[in-house]
């Protein structure tokens, strides 16, 4: 078992033996999906805090 980088060139890494579209299409969509969920979670929290500030008056601001 070796732990070094398997690829001999950057080009080979990008083309993925001809499967680049499928491999990178999977990884980019997965990363984008998680990133979108994180953005939605943060914006929901901000929206909720704004709603609560409005509801309970802004005497603490």
């Amino acid at each position: 078992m070796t732990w070094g980088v398997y690829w001999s060139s950057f080009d080979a890494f990008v083309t993925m033996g001809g499967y680049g579209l499928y491999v990178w299409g999977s990884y980019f969509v997965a990363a984008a999906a998680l990133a979108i969920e994180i953005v939605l979670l943060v914006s929901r929290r901000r929206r909720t805090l704004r709603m609560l500030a409005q509801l309970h008056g802004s005497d603490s601001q």
Partner: protein
Amino acid sequence: MQSPASPPDAPRRTRFSWTYFASPATFYPPAGAMIPWFAAAAAILCAAGVYVGLLVAPTDATQGDSYRIIFIHVGAAWMSMFLYLVMAFWATVGLAWNTRLASMMASALAPTGALFAFLALWTGALWGKPTWGTWWVWDARLTSELILLFLYIGFMALQAAIDDPRRADRAGAVLAIVGVINVPIIYFSVQWWNTLHQGSSISMTRAPSMAATMVLGMLLVALGFWMYSIAAALARVRSIILERERRTDWVVSEIGKTMGTT
């Protein structure tokens, strides 16, 4: 052997009790404190898994480099099924014991579960095209996973359609419980029916048929997705708690604290 008797004047609150955290007010602060730890673990595990999967693991002898989709495909598929079971568990607890927090937890898990079900299908399609020659086929494994995605979407749509939160909790719980039957169908579909989908890559009872680096990459990403799911569900349940408990005194004082610090 005798355990020493506790002093009579010992305050009862020192005894740790899980039911203490069953109320939204007591769960809200520790949930917030846990999020950064689970998020950090998720980032480290996913980065390590993707590093091993894309850079260290060798090309597969039969599938070439298309097999590298496995590193996210398997983790996403596992999480989509596991999160459904967890969601159904909390929905059942909320239904049976009438605990609000358990129902909120079920609602918080649904979008993340749907996300992983979508990712399992998406990466599966991108893997199917080069290996089977088709993006999609109506076989048992793929169809039951698609039904899982629809169950998540149905659960969220049903809850969104009902104004009263506790009625929405109960209706969602019934749907979630009925849908549990689909999870073993997905899991065992490759054994029960003839399907294009390959069998399990990893088994508890026999040695893995893959290279050690391949197994490691897969497990690292799957663990990372697990930690991510916990962080995401905790973050979402905190918003749900604040929205639903907005008229309570503890939320008012909590908001005062938040406004004071930011």
